[in-house]
């Protein structure tokens, strides 16, 4: 039974300034899930400052919530035993945004590939390690002879991003958290990498959280989409429904801001009012109301359905998709 990683009703508040007077609410009342019985891909979409990177840090255990908790396989992160924590560390991996910052310039790229195998004792010899590394590099479309033995500055952004994916795969993870994995990669390579990520779920049964500010790529790979703004979930639901029938005004504005590449479909660029519409997130997070079997929107839109969490919608969507796909 694949394990479930959940953030339950979490708040993250950063205090700074003289005597900790200035408080910045990065996340408020967020419940997200990844993994579980039906591996799926959830896209977390939000602009800069929406709290999406903080969410990744919570899921990775790099940051503890001010309120609420992070639970893996039923065990809260805060009180996890050492062996459980080691197993968590191995089964939940991540890919980061900046390919130039993710590699220690002092070492060849073999270093971050050998380290996980040694650290978790997955190999008995150097040859066995390199065998696994080469196989994994090939699985992400890289030729080992053109990659291994090189320093990070000798590889292109696209190559480095794929090496980072390979590193995560070496540990046979159940869950991969991808923080804007393609935003700093050239457009031509973007679809290749998205293809690889989608393949991880489809072929290896790995569940992913795909964090991005780019709705079009979210539409490409994700089964469900969570729209985040000011640290609160505005809307969550199955991808097709959210994109083609957005309910929350913020989601609608986000979709409207994306230009369709076909110039004939109107985008009314010239009627822009000077000042953009402001979506100030309200102080207390508005609960999510179910507006369909696979949908929920923050705040009461029309007759509010029962209150539900984003996690529940995500799991519902992944279950529904599992039913569609042949086993």
């Amino acid at each position, binding site marked *: 039974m694949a394990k479930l990683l959940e953030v339950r009703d979490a708040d993250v508040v950063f205090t700074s300034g003289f005597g900790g007077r200035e408080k910045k609410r990065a996340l408020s009342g967020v419940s997200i899930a990844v993994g579980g019985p039906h591996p799926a891909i959830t896209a977390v979409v939000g602009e800069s400052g929406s709290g999406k990177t903080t969410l990744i840090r919570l899921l990775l255990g790099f940051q503890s919530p001010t309120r609420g908790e992070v639970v893996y396989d039923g065990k809260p992160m805060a009180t996890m035993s050492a062996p459980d924590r080691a197993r968590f*560390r191995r089964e939940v991996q991540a890919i*980061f945004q900046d390919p130039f910052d993710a590699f220690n310039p002092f070492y060849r790229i073999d270093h971050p590939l050998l380290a996980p195998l040694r650290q*978790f004792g997955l190999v008995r010899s150097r040859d066995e390690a390199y065998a696994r590394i080469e196989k994994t590099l090939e699985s992400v479309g890289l030729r080992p002879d053109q990659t291994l033995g090189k320093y990070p500055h000798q590889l292109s952004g696209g190559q480095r991003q794929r090496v980072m994916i390979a*590193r995560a795969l070496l540990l046979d993870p159940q869950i991969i958290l991808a923080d804007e994995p393609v935003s700093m990669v050239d457009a031509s390579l973007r679809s290749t990498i998205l293809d690889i990520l989608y393949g991880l779920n489809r072929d290896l049964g790995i569940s992913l959280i795909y964090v991005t500010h780019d709705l079009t790529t979210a539409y490409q790979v994700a089964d469900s989409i969570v729209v985040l703004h000011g640290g609160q979930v505005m809307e969550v639901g199955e991808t097709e429904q959210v994109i083609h029938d957005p309910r929350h005004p913020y989601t609608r504005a986000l979709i409207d801001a994306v230009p369709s590449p076909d110039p004939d479909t109107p985008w009314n660029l010239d009627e822009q009012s000077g000042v953009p519409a402001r979506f100030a997130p309200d102080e207390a997070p508005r609960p999510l109301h179910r507006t369909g079997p696979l949908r929920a929107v923050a705040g009461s839109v029309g007759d509010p359905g029962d209150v539900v969490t984003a996690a529940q919608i995500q799991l519902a969507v992944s279950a529904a998709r599992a039913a569609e796909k042949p086993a």
Partner: protein
Amino acid sequence: MAALGNSLARLYANRSLFAGLSLLLLIVLVALIGPLLIDPALSRVGATIPRLPPSADHWFGTDGQGRDMFTTMILALPQTLRIGIAAGFISLFVGVALGLIAGFVGGVVDTIIRVASDVMMTIPGIAILVLVASYVRVMTVDLMAIIVASLSWMVAARTIRAQTLTLRERGYVAIARLNGTSGLKLIFVEVLPNLLPFIAASFVVTVTSAMLATVGLEALGLGPQNDLTLGMSIYWAQFYGAILRGLWWWWGPPIVLIVLIFIGLLLTSAGMDGFVNKRLEGN
């Protein structure tokens, strides 16, 4: 490793670093080989006729106390270097350790270390050194190194703390944590190698400030009484009014040697700034 190879090439390209290091190397060689070639007896008080100007048999002349200046200089140079470098290493070690701890542990520990180094920076080092040195009855070279080191660790601490704070946030440190590395291994394997250029740069700055403090203390007569150092020979020259009496060869050579040391240190640290900044822009 290839990284070391091309950095040597860049070293040559960075002229001031190259000039500085070669000057310092020359001085250290003289300090090591010199004492083997001279007769130390000539440096004892009364060994020669005092106040002789430079001549064939006394290349640097003789001082007011009958010491042969050339021999004295050859013996004094290693002593002064020893204080400067010993103080440099001690304060570098303390500074780097505190910088790493402050950078990585953060929170209250970081605040304490930061405030301590800022406060110590404001107190005029020489005044405290004067206070401490005037209490010590018998000053030796090693004790002086420790005293001087106690007031030049702050430079290294500040630089390393600032760098650690930025390096700690780098992607590859997070990746290393995902790979299961943690604690000291994380610091030594991932962060320290990238700190090396900053440590080297801080070492040069620390040795410079340690040397400055040492020579300053000695000029006030607070240096090691019975050991021969460049600073002390300047003090005795000044004490016996060599300047007023025009015995330039008594205080000239020590000043020239000290100036050469400091020029070497300055060229090296200026060169290193260029080298360090390039690395900053590099990755």
